[in-house]
């Protein structure tokens, strides 16, 4: 790391002093694991559906979209936790709650021992915003075409009044650009977004997060817009930063294979709930929830199927239901190939299946393994879960 990098960490040290004050203040909150950085308890985010202005009248119940519907999650210091799910799973909303862009309607968020659920305005929120940063998906939308890279990276400092002296501001911006691999930093600071490639733009977005000296980075699909040859460089940068600065990541992605490569632990979300959580290799190699197993089976692979055979995939019928109409019982039951009576009425809790893995499925009760599931090579996928709304291919 260059001299610039050292300057950055000095800044970071100053901030952790502030952080220490925070944890002292929050010492009364229930202690979690010793190295726990973030804890989410019973988190709910319900958005009201307002179809017309009259819906605000008393006696009207316009209904809610249950984007996140009761999740518990702990992230340890220095850990990469991947939150994996399809669109509508609530993974992005969860990330937005952690960075305080969306207010939860239930549950709480505890960061470094302090309850930050109701943190609003003032110095405490500013400190939190320094320690927890978000990296967005789309560098094209995040960057302002008329703003120089240096000004973009400095913006969080300016907004939070963190670097009033121009010298200090400049030093921190250059250090962040350098740490994000945009070298020479002086040169990049003067450039504009259109002069950069897609990979460089995403590095700028990362520099914008690094300039605050964060401890937790919430990365929402940080590489999904990038070509494979560029994205591996970015992923490497993110992991290098973890090694150098002890960064902790909440990595939000739809790509289970990417999560497997990067994450220490994986949490699989479906329709606002966690279906399965555990060490990455356990979740991928021995899934205990039928949804996870189906996802693993359709996960993109470059290994062609053997001659004359079709890939052994469990293709679920239909699409994720709308979060305004969450199915009864286990919310996955209408699409589950292994559904039985209990699933239709009772929602399963996360059952511990050993080795730090837990699955929300009645079949996982007592740590049992799943029975075999039908694949495209076998018949009966369609028969298992017909859906009049969106009949699958298998039904044709």
């Amino acid at each position, binding site marked *: 790391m260059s001299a610039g990098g050292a300057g950055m960490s000095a800044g970071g040290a100053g901030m952790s002093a502030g952080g220490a004050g925070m944890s002292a203040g929050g010492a009364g909150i229930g202690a979690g694991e010793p190295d726990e950085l973030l804890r989410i308890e019973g988190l709910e985010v319900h958005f009201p559906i307002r179809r017309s202005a009259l819906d605000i009248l008393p006696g009207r119940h316009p209904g809610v979209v249950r984007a996140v519907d009761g999740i518990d999650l702990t992230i340890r210091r220095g850990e990469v936790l991947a939150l994996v799910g399809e669109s509508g799973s609530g993974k992005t909303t969860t990330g937005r709650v952690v960075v305080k862009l969306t207010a939860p309607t239930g549950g709480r968020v505890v960061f470094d021992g302090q309850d930050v659920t109701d943190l609003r305005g003032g110095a405490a929120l500013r400190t939190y915003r320094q320690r927890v940063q978000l990296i967005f998906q789309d560098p094209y939308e995040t960057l302002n075409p008329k703003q120089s890279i240096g000004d973009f990276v400095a913006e969080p400092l300016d907004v939070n009044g963190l670097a009033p002296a121009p010298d200090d501001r400049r030093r921190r911006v250059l250090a962040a650009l350098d740490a994000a691999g945009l070298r020479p930093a002086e040169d990049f600071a003067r450039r504009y977004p259109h002069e950069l490639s897609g990979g460089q733009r995403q590095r700028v977005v990362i520099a914008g997060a690094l300039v605050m000296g964060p401890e937790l980075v919430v990365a929402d699909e940080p590489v999904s817009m990038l070509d494979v040859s560029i994205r591996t460089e970015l992923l490497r940068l993110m992991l290098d930063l973890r090694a150098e600065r002890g960064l902790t990541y909440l990595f939000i992605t739809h790509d*289970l294979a990417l999560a497997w490569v990067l994450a220490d632990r994986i949490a699989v979300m479906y329709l606002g709930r966690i279906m399965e959580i555990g060490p990455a290799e356990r979740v991928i190699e021995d899934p205990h929830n039928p949804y996870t197993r189906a996802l693993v089976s359709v996960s993109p692979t470059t290994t062609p199927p053997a001659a004359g055979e079709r890939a052994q995939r469990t293709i679920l019928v239909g699409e994720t239901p709308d979060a305004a109409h969450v199915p009864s019982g286990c919310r996955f039951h209408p699409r589950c190939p292994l559904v039985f009576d209990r699933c239709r009425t009772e929602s399963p809790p996360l059952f511990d299946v050993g080795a730090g893995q837990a699955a929300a499925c009645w079949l996982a009760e007592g740590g049992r393994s799943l029975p075999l599931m039908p694949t495209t090579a076998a018949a009966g996928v369609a028969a298992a879960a017909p859906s009049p709304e969106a009949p699958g291919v298998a039904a044709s």
Partner: protein
Amino acid sequence: MTAAVPRPDRPPRALPRLAVAGAPLLEVDDLKTHFRLAGEVVRAVDGVSFRLDAGEALGIAGESGCGKTTTALSLVRLLPANASIVGGSIRLHGIDLATKSDTAIRRYRWREISIVFQGAMNALNPVARVRDQIAEPIVERLGVDARTARRRAGELLELVGIPRARGSAYPHELSGGMRQRAMIAMALACDPAIVIGDEPTTALDVMVQAQILDLLERLRERLGLSLILITHDLSVIAETCDRVLIMYAGRVAEEGPVAQVFTRPRHPYTQKLLAAFPNIQADRRTLDVIPGTPPDLRTPPPGCRFAPRCPLAMAVCSEVVPPEVTFADRVRVACHLYSEGSSGEPVLVPAAATVGRA
């Protein structure tokens, strides 16, 4: 798989009027499509050749800006106004489409070759019912009455797994997966021989992507379609195609049967692309880094266009364009490591840097 697949569900297609007897279904030879941009020439497609046989599925892969979409648009002659085919030929049953007039090409577009675009929301008309949108090309191109066309549209919707009654929906009332199914139904409207899918599953969730790929595979078997899938996602090709063509910076890097190219890649770029792909089913839990970025196609490097990023680049690579050499396993490679008469044994590229855990 390359042999003509029987078509139980439809009678043999009549060949177009000018077809040359015995000519292959589609033969693209030295295709060059260039763009004019602010007075400069962008060599988006710069000498691409390939062949597609009846019933075959060919995948064209590459990263943004490698020319794969321009290749697809050239085949159906739907290029933007500042692009034109400046060389080579596109022969369908021996008929050269590259030199046809804009009016003459309409005889072949949709009826012989149709295309499913990426992002069905933008490609569908938001203010027309899905069934009517599918019926429109049937009336236009096949000259049948509106009633027959609507009935045929209903059949097509069922074929792609949408209940007939949903045909009265507008595009915004359908989910992403259903819209993509509707797009496929539209591409099938005039019973074409070749369907091109340009990133047909890109914006879809993995489970919906699996459903759409499964649908395409079933349709191919059932209708004896020939498919060209254009995608940046190598897994889509691994799962659905017989042959793959890897493009880099407007040229063919490697082409051949999927089973060969994906398991024994020869071109350094193909090797790197595969190693950069996260793959649950592989033992490896690391990703390779490919340093650098693709070249600017206004001023492509002389010689091999991958040379500036290639870990195995030799002096000759930055001077001489590598010729395409075809080996006994029907794999064609454009790389100086594999000269005419060499054994064709893959030369392994060492990993420069990796991500993940070993």
